[in-house]
Structure formats: C-alpha cells, structure tokens
C-alpha cells in the first residue's frame, strides 16, 4: 500500500492571483516516493508557484494537494512533512550556521542534545564541518547553499522541495553541486522536487521531468522521453536544440515538406495537418551528393547559406527550399569535408529522429 502511494500528488490544481493571472492551470501530477523530480520551464511558467503550493506557502484556488496520500487542504507550512531550499537560500542573518541548521528541530521542541547531534550530522553531510559558528554572511555562495540544504535535510522531511537552488552559483560550482545534490539524494533516498529553468540541469539530475508552460504541464516523462520524444513544439524547443521545417502530414508515418519532398517521420497528428518537422541538430548529417548518403533514410536537398567556425566543430546553416533552414554541426575531425556558402548539399537523418509536432 505505502509503496504505491505517491509522495506528492496534485489533482486539478489551479492557482489564480487576482482575476486576470492564472499562474497554475489545472495541473495533475504524481511524484513517486524516492524520485528526483524536476519542474522545468521558463520564468513565469508556474513552476515555483506549484512548488510553493506543495510547501503550503501558497494555497491552490482549486484542486487538491496530497503528500503521501494525506490531503493538505489549508494546512500551514509548519504542519507539512516537507522542507524547502529557497532560491536565495533565505538564511537567517541573525543566527550562525548551527543556529540556522538547528532552527527546524528547535521549533519541533527536540531536546538540546538531540539537536546538537543531528545538526552535527547534517553539517557533516554537506561538508561544512568546522564552520558551525560562522555567520551566514561570512560564507561563500556555495557554502550558503550547503547551509540551506543542511537546514532543510536535518528535519528528515518526507519530501525536499528545491527552488532553483543553484541559480545564484557560477557555472563550475553549479556543476559540482549538481553531482553532489544527486549523491546526497541517493544517499538519503528521500523525494526531491526540483524547480529549475535550466534544461541541462534537469536532464542530468532528474529521474523524471515535468515541463511546464504558461501554467500547464507540457509533458511529463523521463529525461530521455522528454528529449527524444517531445510531445509538442514547446517541449521540443525548450529542451535542447531543435531544427524546424514546415510540413504537412500525408499519412501515418509520412510527411511532405512545404515545397516538395516526401519524408518518413514519427507522426501523431491526423492526415493533412500542418505540422513542424523537428530533428535534433546532432542527428543531422551532411553529404555532397545523394549517392554518398546511406540508403533507407531521409535525404533532403539544400544549399549552404552560412558557415560558422567553432573550433571543435563547424556549423552550417542549410536552406531547405521554402520550408525553412536547419543548422548542422560537423565535428572538426581530420577527415572533415569543407563546404562553401552556396554549395548544394544533402541533409540526411534517420526517420526515427524526425518528429512531426504541433503546438
């Protein structure tokens, strides 16, 4: 019974601010116990509001939030079995590191020796041993981040909510912290709900991702599902790079580009729907002539309109008739062929890599 109860479940959750703004619009979501779950989307997509509704810092206008099967209703944040790592860390400036980390335990009237023991453990877990007496102001960004993490984890919440916790860190530190967060999650095995606008971060860390757009769920799935099989143009464009070509569905599994060529692709839209054919740039290959291209794949004629040298790769922009243009990256290996602007080329890709998507 407990195995199948989701750690967090949202049913028909809607949040309005005033009359006009719908921050979250009818969201249904089940987050499994022990999962690293990311809410991914551009700013203003409702991901933070969703997280705040789980934390109890905001209450849904409509719908229900359950944590481990228990209806949360209007239960205040201090009565929910979740803890939050805030975006700006929100460390208490009038307490030292140990004071910050122990705050939640003291509020739960845990006795002093127990507080000391667990605070020590949490500080060790995030590798801040020796900094207990420091003021948060005297810590670096990465250290503050760890304090915020320890302060939440020390309470052994059933679900840990993280609101863009790495947003304020520089790239290098962010990558280190990503791995560290993932390790900590594996070690303690609790559910993480992670809000981020960084698709790379979501892909590398998450078991599952919910991509959000304008308050709605655009797609929920594993990192691979979201990347390899986006369900709509928004997900395709937001997660990773994508090339777009205008086309029309001819029949199931087959589309015709605007301006001619018939191609095989994964389709779900009904016949004669206008669609956008999308392919990941790393799945495109360039050839000088159709004869060089492998058989049984999609091959489209085009002409080079721009060439950009990146060092490790060269990127060609290839114009495909009236249906659009694609960017193809060619790795800078010794055998690399060089095309010039105006050259006629063949763009080749596997039918499985092409998806006909609608909005």
């Amino acid at each position, binding site marked *: 019974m407990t195995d199948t109860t989701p750690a967090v479940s949202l049913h028909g959750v809607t949040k309005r601010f005033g009359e006009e703004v719908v921050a979250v619009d009818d969201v249904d979501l089940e987050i499994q116990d022990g999962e690293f779950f990311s809410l991914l989307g551009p700013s203003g997509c409702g991901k933070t509001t969703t997280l705040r509704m789980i934390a*109890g*810092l905001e209450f849904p206008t409509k719908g229900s939030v359950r944590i481990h099967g228990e209806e949360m209703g209007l239960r205040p944040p*201090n009565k929910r079995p979740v*803890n*939050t790592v805030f975006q700006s860390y*929100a460390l*208490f*400036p*009038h307490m030292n590191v140990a004071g910050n980390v122990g*705050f939640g335990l003291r509020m739960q009237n845990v006795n002093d020796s127990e507080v000391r023991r667990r605070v020590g453990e949490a500080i060790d877990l995030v590798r801040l041993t020796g900094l207990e007496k420091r003021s948060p102001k005297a810590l670096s960004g990465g250290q503050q981040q760890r304090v915020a993490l320890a302060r939440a984890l020390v309470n052994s919440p059933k679900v840990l909510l993280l609101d863009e916790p790495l947003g304020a860190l520089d790239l290098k530190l962010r990558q280190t912290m990503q791995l560290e967060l993932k390790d900590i999650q594996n070690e303690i095995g609790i559910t993480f709900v992670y809000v981020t606008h960084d698709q790379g971060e979501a892909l590398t860390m998450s078991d599952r991702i919910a991509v959000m757009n304008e308050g709605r769920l655009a797609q929920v799935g594993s990192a691979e599902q979201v990347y390899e099989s986006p369900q709509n143009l928004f997900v395709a464009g937001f997660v990773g790079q994508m090339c777009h070509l205008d086309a029309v569905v001819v029949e199931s599994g087959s589309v015709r580009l605007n301006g001619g060529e018939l191609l095989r692709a994964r389709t779900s839209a009904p016949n004669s729907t206008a669609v956008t054919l999308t392919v990941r740039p790393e799945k495109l290959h360039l050839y000088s002539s159709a004869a060089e291209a492998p058989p049984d794949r999609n091959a489209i004629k085009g002409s080079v309109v721009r060439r950009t040298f990146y060092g490790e790769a060269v990127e060609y922009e290839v114009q495909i008739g009236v249906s659009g243009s694609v960017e193809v990256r060619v790795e800078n290996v010794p055998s690399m062929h060089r095309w010039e602007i105006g050259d006629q080329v063949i763009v080749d890709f596997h039918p499985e890599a092409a998806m006909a998507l609608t909005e």
Partner: protein
Amino acid sequence: MTLPDQHEQVEQEAVNPRLERKARKQESWRGFFHAAPAYVYLTFFFTLPLIMVYVFSFASRGPTGKPRLEDWNFDSWSKLTEPLFREIALRSLWMAILNTALCLLIGYPFAYWIATRASQKTRTLLLVGVLIPFWSNFLIRTYAWRMLLDSDGLITQLGEWTGFWGQLLFTPTAVFIGLLYGYLPFVVLPLYAAIERLDWTLVEAGRDLYASGSAAFRKITLPLSKPGIVAGSILVFIPSLGAYVTPDILGGAKTTLLGNYIVTQFTAARNWPFGSAMSGAILILMLAATILYFRTDTRTI
C-alpha cells in the same frame, strides 16, 4: 619571470602610499570645507552654550539669584542627591520608560500593518497620515488636548457618562496621554522603515521550518526589526525624559517632571547653578545610556 614581478611590487609599494596619502589628505580637506558651516554653527550655538552650562553648574547663587562664578563650589551637584530631585527624576524616568514601552506596543503593530500593505500608494498615504499632526504646532495640539480633557471636555464627559473616569486634566494620566500622543509618530517611522525592508522569504523559511505564525514573528520578524525598535525607542525615550510642554500644560503641580523642574530653576527659583547641574547630569546619564544601548543591542544585527 620572478624578477620583474618583484620589481613591480617594490615600485607599487613605493609610489602608491605617497599618492594615496596625498589623495586621502585632499579628500579630508574637501570634506572639512563642506562641513565648515556646520562646524561653525555647532561650535557657537551648541558646544559653547553646553560648556557654559557646565561652568555655571559650579557657580554659587548670589543673594538676588545672580549666579556668581567667583566662588565656585560643588553645592549644586551635591543637591542632586536630595529626595525632592530624586522623586522628580524617578517619576520622569518611569513616565519615559512607560511611554516608550507603550509607544512601541501601539506603534509596532501599526507600522507592521502599514509596511505589509501591498500597494506602495497605500503605504505612502498611510505614512503621510502619520505625519499630518506635524502640520500644526505641537503647543497648539497640546492645548487641544487640554480642551478635550477639561471638565466640560469631550473625553471627560465620555468618562463621566460611562462612569469609568472623571476629569483627567492636571493628573499624571493626562501628562501620559499627551506624551503618548506626541511621540507615537516618532516610533512608527523608524519601525516602518525596518519592517518594510525585511526579507519576507526569511519568514517563509521560518514557517517552512515548523515555526508557527507567532513563533516566526518572535524568532525572525522581531529580531530582524530590532534596528527600528532601537532607533524608535531612543527617539521617544530621550525627549520624553526631558518633556516640558506636555507636563506644563496638561499636568498639575503634582506632576512636575525633570524638564519643568529645570525650567523652574532658571525662571521662578532663579537658581541657575542648580538648573545647570541638573541639565548637565541628565545629559551625561543619557549619553551613557544611549551608548550602552547601541553597543549591546545593535551589534548582532
């Protein structure tokens, strides 16, 4: 590679301190010129009179009340230990402390309420409301209270009608009402400033970490608004202790406070040395108390 580096370092150390010192000197001279009018003003109208107060406190009172500096003594200072002065001083202190406490108690929720209004326009409007009393003279406003508290005044009539109180004018309560009325805005403004710039995510973090609404207020909001509490209480406590107009107009003979007592020494009693000694002593005590208060209470913020 190391040689040029060292050379550069030596050169930097040799050149920069001299230049820096010169720049700093120029900077400080510029600063002095800007502040010169204020220095002159303060020297003539603040420092010199203050020195005069202390000098006169050692003078002796001549037969006509004319202070005589020729035979100076400590009589006025030793007079400070007399029971009459002690009684007045303690009453003033009690009034000032109680007034400060009540101002904070009433002012804090009000400042909190203003600071947490969503729209900036509402907040500005409410703050202007706090400042409106300053548009008319304090003396006039105190006389207005006199009318309200007098035997046929509105408040007295209300008290008699409900049976809770009679005429309040010329009682300590009247002085107290006047002080509270007069100094409440001074505590609201700094409290508002402190609460308004509070980072509310900290309160949310507290709630998230199992603090109830009231616990979050006690452990987070209150300690973080301490600068406003300190500033507000100093702004109220000091003038309350030296209040003159309010006890003079609203209090009777029984509610003489330090301010009135000192004024009496300079006027009716014609005892300038004693008045000076009292002023000087209060000033020293107040300065010590303020320094102590700032030291102990604001360091953690």
